[in-house]
């Protein structure tokens, strides 16, 4: 055989690696996430032939549904939210192996019935199937479900793998995250646990690593000697919609900064891993998080939107949104100035910001290089020489652009910035799979590279906790910004002299 001893010689050259036979159980199976994302993702994996050769799905939720009623709901959700029109034959075949367990998550009987169904699937398929439990519920149920799974002997399965996939948020502060880790890890081993940060499943986020580590051009300048500052922005033009209940308890800092923006910062700052393997990548990310000193309150900004105009339409302020308490102190905008105190990045400011109801939707990393040390050209009559800026856009126009100084045609040596632009959409034929398709497959295969490890989550909260404490004490005060704007005017307060935010 041509493969290493013990390996599967048949997988070489295959784009899709095999996934072991699995029964996937979704807790919160009738919820919004399941309907909009998980069920359509499973259909698309089925369509592409990317599910395990034997695959069963069990939905667990409180609603008193029959198997058939749940299948009908799943069919409707898939037809409505799938990125492609379902093939009826594939959809029928997928739904054939779908079952439903009605019950509350704290009730022992729910798990007894679940255990019976899991055993039935094993019996029908004639092999012990891997089991994956997807916790797509309110975070309050995460420890309850995990402990019930343990109590009913469902955290282990002879001759097969058992994995648990936990949705965000993983705690609302460091203490809760540590406690949740403790309770989860009292039932499961860390390699069995897959904490979702769906940002990591996005192709363009993974491309940050490809861009850094597959191009020799950037590494020599990727440090404090050449990089002046970094801005990471996740701006949304929409409000909170119908998510007031969740959002008002979370706020912008917990919703996006604690997980997504810190992940982007890690990918940008980490040292090259020796191999692209789960623990090697995550070890490097944890080192970055540990090198961050939590920012002082004066290096943070919090604000909420007031009524304004978005796309020519009048929109209400946050306090006028349906379901938001009138005395809410929740921020819809957060900005931080961080430093990564290590050899590579010492002294480079990292500005992170996120907000709802901003001027437009964009997620990007902007890296500004230091200016040239001496300029022989006259600046009069032009906008002048600007430092080079490398902008990595995660969404919506995925790509990379580099601003360069170029001579304006004419008799004088006048310079202006020009853009060298690369757009992913023009360079690849493939449609990116949804993040959840990638993450579900990886979890079923046991590949944790794109999932957050326990120490990583805790290291994220170590940065965020002091900010939450300061904000709870009113430091700095909650500011406001007009919906549809660039954010609060005070956002520039955290910037070093001479720095200013890029326009959103």
């Amino acid at each position: 055989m041509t493969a290493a001893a013990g390996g599967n010689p048949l997988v070489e050259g295959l784009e899709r690696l095999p996934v072991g036979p699995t029964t996937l159980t979704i807790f919160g199976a009738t919820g919004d996430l399941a309907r909009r994302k998980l069920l359509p993702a499973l259909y698309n994996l089925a369509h592409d032939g990317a599910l395990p050769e034997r695959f069963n799905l069990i939905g667990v939720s409180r609603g008193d549904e029959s198997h058939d009623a749940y299948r009908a709901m799943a069919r409707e959700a898939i037809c409505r939210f799938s990125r492609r029109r379902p093939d009826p034959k594939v959809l029928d075949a997928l739904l054939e192996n779908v079952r439903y367990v009605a019950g509350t998550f704290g009730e022992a009987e729910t798990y007894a019935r679940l255990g019976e169904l899991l055993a039935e699937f094993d019996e029908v398929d004639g092999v012990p199937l891997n089991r994956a439990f997807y916790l797509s519920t309110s975070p309050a149920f995460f420890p309850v479900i995990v402990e019930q799974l343990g109590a009913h002997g469902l955290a282990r399965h002879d001759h097969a793998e058992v994995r648990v996939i936990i949705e965000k948020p993983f705690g609302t502060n460091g203490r809760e995250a540590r406690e949740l880790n403790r309770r989860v890890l009292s039932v499961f081993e860390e390699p069995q646990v897959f904490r979702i940060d769906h940002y990591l499943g996005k192709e363009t986020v993974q491309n940050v690593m490809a861009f850094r580590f597959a191009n020799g051009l950037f590494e020599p300048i990727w440090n404090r000697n050449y990089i002046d500052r970094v801005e990471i922005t996740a701006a949304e033009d929409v409000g909170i919609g119908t998510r007031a209940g969740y959002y008002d308890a979370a706020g912008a800092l917990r919703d996006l900064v604690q997980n997504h923006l810190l992940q982007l910062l890690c990918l940008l700052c980490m040292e090259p891993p020796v191999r692209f393997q789960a623990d090697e990548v995550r070890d490097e990310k944890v080192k970055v998080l540990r090198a961050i000193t939590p920012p002082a309150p004066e290096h943070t900004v919090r604000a909420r939107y007031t009524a304004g105009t978005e796309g020519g339409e009048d929109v209400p302020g946050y306090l006028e949104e349906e379901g938001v308490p009138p005395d809410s102190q929740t921020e819809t905008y957060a900005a931080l100035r961080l430093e990564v105190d290590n050899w590579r990045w010492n002294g480079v400011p990292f500005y992170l910001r996120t907000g709802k109801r901003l001027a437009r939707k964009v997620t990007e990393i902007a890296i500004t290089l230091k200016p040239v040390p001496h300029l022989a050209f006259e600046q009069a009559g032009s906008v002048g020489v600007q430092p080079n800026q490398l902008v990595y856009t995660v969404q919506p126009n995925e790509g990379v652009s580099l601003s360069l100084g170029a001579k304006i045609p004419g008799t004088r040596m006048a310079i202006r910035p020009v853009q060298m632009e690369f757009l992913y959409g023009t360079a690849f034929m493939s449609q990116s799979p949804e993040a959840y398709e990638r993450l579900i497959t990886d979890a079923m295969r046991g590949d944790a590279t794109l999932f957050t490890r326990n120490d990583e989550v805790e290291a994220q909260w170590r940065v965020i906790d002091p900010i939450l404490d300061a904000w709870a004490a009113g430091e700095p005060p909650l500011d406001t910004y007009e919906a549809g704007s660039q954010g609060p005017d005070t956002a520039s307060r955290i910037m070093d002299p001479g720095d200013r935010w890029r326009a959103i």
Partner: protein
Amino acid sequence: MTALVASDRTWFERDTTPAAIEAALRRLLVESRHGEHSGAIPARVLNLVTVVDRQWRGEIENRLERVGRYHASRTVLLAVEPRRTTIDARATVHVDAEPHPSGMTTAREHLVLDVGAEHVEHLATIVDPLVVTDLPTMLWAPHGHAEAIDELLPLAQVVLLDSVDEPDLEDALARARALARRAYVVDLAWLRSTPWRERIAGAFDPPAERARLATIAAVEVRHHPDSAVAGVLLLGWLCARLGWRPGALAARRDRALEGRARARRGEVRLVLRPAPEQPVRGLAGLTIETGDGTVLRLDRGEGGLRAERVTRRGGRRTWTVLGASRGEPGILGEGIRQALLRDPTYRPALDAAAEMVA
């Protein structure tokens, strides 16, 4: 799915030259950026150079139009007409109506040149100015035109072929091997076997099953009567991946081909059986028997592959391996996409297949 086209800008000229075509295309691209779809950006992924018989040009254009999102960014279609002495050309810039989620739209270029047989020996000088420099170039000649492929190979890195088009099994493999020595080959016959290869790999992937790989005693591949080459490539893949030394296949009375391969633990019986009931090109099914008497059978079915496992003691399990049929347009689209990838297992499989039919 056929891509929707929001707007086409077209130029046509009789008795033209490559320089005039290239200049016209540049003009069209500038106009498309400043016209109705000012945000349209030319895609820059792949040049596809296709050589076809003039009388079948429309059919090939239809096939190319139906590959969904896997359009080459620039297609140069050369339609050869035996007695033609001049070049007529049409250049079209298509702007896709279905914008990227960001609102960005991409444009792709489609050139059709009617050329004469006399042009074929100088085809490289006609095509060279028309492909985008630095992009990979793929060649495809679905109606043969081996001389045109030979002439254009120095311009290209990838050759697309469908070995199933060649009726003689030995000739099909010989042609593919000859091309594979000079360029990277994407063979649609090979891509037809991809789901089957994935499923065989998956069936033997659990550690408990992997040990059985060394005990495989017989493999039968069933195929559309025109697709024996897809079947023999699958057998070649198993031989190459599992270290079997294949022997020659011999014809049986029932029109199947049968042979043996030498594996470390003994011989493996290999059978290639036509399946006249199979309505479309490609594979119809396969059966793998292992030394302990377990039989794994995969056949095309509703919504995927129908799988059956029978043990020596008569235990029988059946299930469906989910997956949608790609259809012929999907296979061609996949072939175009594969121009950007490299599969290291095709050539060893091809070499092993060639040994079986030698």
